[in-house]
């Protein structure tokens, strides 16, 4: 079977699942609903594996396969800003190349595991079928996003995942907080989409196409011919506009506020959408547009700075949160910051690598936390947990592996990917020691809050309330098996991207055709070689050291019986409160934008009904008033003359009126008398 030509089917299997479950799921048994949903994703996964395998068989420079299904939009001719005639044509088409193959494997693979897990986690819920229908719809959108071969296909997926995210965050729709969070997520994302749409339109207006390959070729040809040069404003503009979109979807400063609130959704949703897949769409998009970003180093610098600041900022909030899912949410934001840092220093492969490893261990951590929450009957507050490690051992073990991986323990997935980012931040031509320093500090903070989570949940004294305590149970197999698979992944995934001093970096090599430099300068590789291996190893050691410090602080504070946490928070009360309240950013946004927009709307409404409509009504009133005046004139002056004439005749004629009695017989009598008189007169003459 030629899977490469069938990649257009990959997004369609989940659509089938969505339609079946959406239309008939209500009347089907839960097991059937869950099987169909997970099965659809499994088939997609199999097709994806087949296609990627066949792609890998091709020679390196041919590893890019496009399938056009049909011509979707053809909106007539257009002219680019360069004066080139073109048409606004967008195909419904898919592209499998090294970058999208990484994404498709991550999305379908982890997506499948999470579907399986959800079969256990959501079993008790009403609307089981609704959940799986939405989840399948999400898989469709996400796969369209990563497999689409042009920017508009990506945009379809981009908006589609936004919709599914909206629906799934609002899954518990009877809770006001869930509805609010859903709406917030969608609207904040829309702000990002505004930027993305503008960027896409600019791409079309500049290059005359939305097709990845065509755009890339136009840029390469333009660079070769000298038409395009690095730092040209149009590239910076496009790159920044696209990045606004990435900030929205991937929760970067200033548009990150929706992601922590998105934890209102069910935990598998948080794992799938808000950790492993959807939120990485921004990273994918920037990596996909790498030829544009390469032409705009200023925009890259913005990406790097925003990324590293987000990493720091989110990690700082994560330090003090007490809700287990919120800690993970801020951790996700922070890790996404890392990915953008990597992209920003031009290390696209490192960013995508971290995206992949992060998908494993963050999905694992979220699912693990879901297992904890499940065990404790929907308790999410870590202050009401503790000493769970023997009661739910599998969850504990797998979560411990995830924590070790994210904290950067040497040998686990997180170490390789994070270390690569740190090294690139320091050594790349776009890098800067300051970026490295902040990123290294964040590594320490990550280690602290993750171990804090682990210790508060599984170690120390049990703070679980008595009633719940008796019902704590390990989750069923359908939930623990995915945890174990993900844990294995979190350990092994890093070995395909070894640092240079350990072995070949298969991952980077695989992605090379996609991230080929636009300008054939190839100096960076030369320069990188100048940095000594010793320096790279030494810096890795430093970052591990910082992580160990984070671990030790967490251990002594939370695993041991200690009142240090209380003491420190009391000592730095202001700081603590600020962190606990997320730096008051939500309040700030509310005050600056939300309320102002509402005020503006209210004000304009008043303006509309008083001034705009007021003018209309005033015109009407004025017309009526002048009509009243004209009426008076007409009635008393113009008509007055007429009526005077009539009235004169009327008064003058009163004697004659008396004869009009209205009695028919009177008239008849007069007639007869008249006839008699006439007859008499005639006869008088003849007689």
């Amino acid at each position, binding site marked *: 079977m030629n899977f490469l030509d069938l990649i257009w089917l990959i997004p369609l299997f989940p659509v089938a699942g969505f339609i079946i479950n959406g239309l008939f799921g209500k009347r089907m048994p839960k097991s059937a609903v869950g099987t169909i949903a997970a099965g659809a994703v499994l088939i997609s996964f199999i097709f994806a594996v087949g296609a990627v395998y066949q792609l890998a068989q091709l020679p390196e420079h041919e590893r890019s396969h496009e399938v056009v299904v049909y011509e979707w939009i053809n909106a007539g001719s257009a002219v680019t800003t360069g004066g080139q005639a073109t048409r606004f044509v967008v195909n419904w088409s898919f592209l499998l190349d090294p970058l999208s193959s990484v994404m498709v494997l991550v999305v379908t693979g982890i997506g499948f595991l999470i579907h399986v897990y959800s079969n256990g986690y959501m079993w008790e819920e009403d609307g089981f079928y609704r959940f799986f229908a939405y989840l399948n719809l999400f898989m469709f959108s996400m796969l369209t996003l990563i497999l689409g071969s042009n920017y508009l296909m990506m945009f379809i997926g981009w908006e589609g995942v936004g919709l599914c995210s909206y629906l799934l965050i609002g899954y518990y729709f009877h809770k006001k907080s869930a509805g609010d969070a859903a709406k917030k997520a969608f609207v904040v994302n829309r702000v990002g989409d505004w930027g993305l749409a503008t960027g896409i339109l600019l791409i079309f207006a500049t290059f005359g196409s939305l097709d990845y390959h065509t755009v890339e070729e136009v840029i390469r040809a333009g660079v070769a011919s000298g038409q395009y040069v690095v730092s040209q404003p149009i590239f910076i503009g496009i790159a920044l506009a696209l990045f606004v979109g990435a900030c929205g979807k991937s929760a970067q400063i200033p548009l990150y506020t929706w992601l922590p609130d998105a934890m209102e959704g069910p935990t598998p949703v948080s794992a799938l959408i808000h950790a492993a897949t959807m939120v990485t769409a921004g990273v994918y998009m920037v990596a996909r547009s790498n030829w544009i970003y390469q032409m705009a180093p200023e925009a890259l610098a913005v990406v790097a700075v925003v990324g590293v600041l987000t990493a720091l900022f989110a990690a700082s909030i994560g330090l003090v949160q007490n809700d287990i899912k919120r800690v993970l949410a801020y951790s996700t934001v922070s890790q996404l910051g890392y990915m953008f840092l990597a992209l920003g220093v031009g290390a696209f492969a490192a960013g995508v690598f971290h995206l992949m490893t992060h998908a494993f261990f963050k999905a694992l951590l979220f699912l693990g936390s879901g297992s904890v929450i499940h065990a404790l009957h929907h308790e999410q507050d870590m202050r009401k947990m503790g000493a769970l490690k023997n009661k739910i051992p599998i969850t504990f073990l797998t979560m411990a592996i995830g924590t070790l991986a994210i904290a950067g323990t040497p040998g686990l997935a997180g170490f390789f990917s994070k270390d690569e980012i740190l090294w690139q931040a320091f050594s790349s031509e776009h890098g800067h020691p300051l970026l490295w320093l902040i990123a290294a500090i964040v590594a320490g903070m990550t280690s602290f809050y993750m171990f804090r989570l682990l210790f508060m949940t599984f170690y120390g004294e049990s703070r679980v309330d008595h009633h719940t305590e008796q019902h704590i149970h390990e989750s069923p197999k359908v939930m623990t098996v995915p945890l174990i698979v993900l844990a294995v992944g979190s350990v092994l995934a890093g070995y395909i991207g070894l640092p240079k001093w350990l072995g070949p970096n298969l991952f980077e090599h695989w992605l090379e055709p996609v991230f080929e430099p636009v300008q054939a300068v190839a100096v960076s590789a030369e320069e990188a070689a100048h940095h000594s291996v010793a320096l790279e190893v030494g810096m890795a050691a430093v970052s591990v050291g910082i992580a160990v410090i984070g671990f030790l602080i967490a251990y002594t504070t939370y695993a041991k019986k200690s009142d240090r946490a209380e003491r420190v928070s009391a000592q730095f009360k202001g700081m603590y409160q600020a962190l606990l309240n997320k730096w008051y950013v939500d309040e700030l946004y509310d005050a600056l934008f939300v309320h102002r927009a509402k005020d503006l709307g209210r004000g304009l409404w008043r303006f509309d009904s008083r001034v705009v409509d007021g003018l209309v009504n005033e015109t009407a009133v004025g017309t009526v008033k002048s009509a009243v005046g004209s009426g008076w004139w007409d009635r008393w002056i113009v008509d007055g003359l007429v009526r005077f004439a009539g009235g004169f005749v009327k008064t003058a004629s009163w004697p004659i*009126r*008396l004869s*009009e*009695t*209205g*009695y*028919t*017989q009177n008239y*008849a*009598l007069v007639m*007869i008398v008249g006839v008699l008189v006439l007859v008499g007169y005639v006869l008088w003459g003849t007689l």
Partner: protein
Amino acid sequence: MVPIHHYLLLGAALFTIGVVGVLTRRNIMVILMSIELMMNAVNINLIAFSSQLGHVSGQVFAIFVITVAAAEAAVGLGIVIAMFKNKETMNINEIDLMKW
């Protein structure tokens, strides 16, 4: 043969009764009947003269008058009914819309 003035006297008498009826009665139905009476008086005259003069046109005219009288009765009764529906009365004195 009956002399013609007998017929003319009968006609005159009937006509006079009709006129008096029209002028004095207050019930519309009776007035209508009185008008019928007057017309028939005319018919008698027409036929009398026709037979007297040996000319057929008088008889033709009489038939013509009868036809018109029938139509008149129909229209008149229609008006009376419509009027009765509106005013609920047959008294002609209460129908005085033409009064100044």
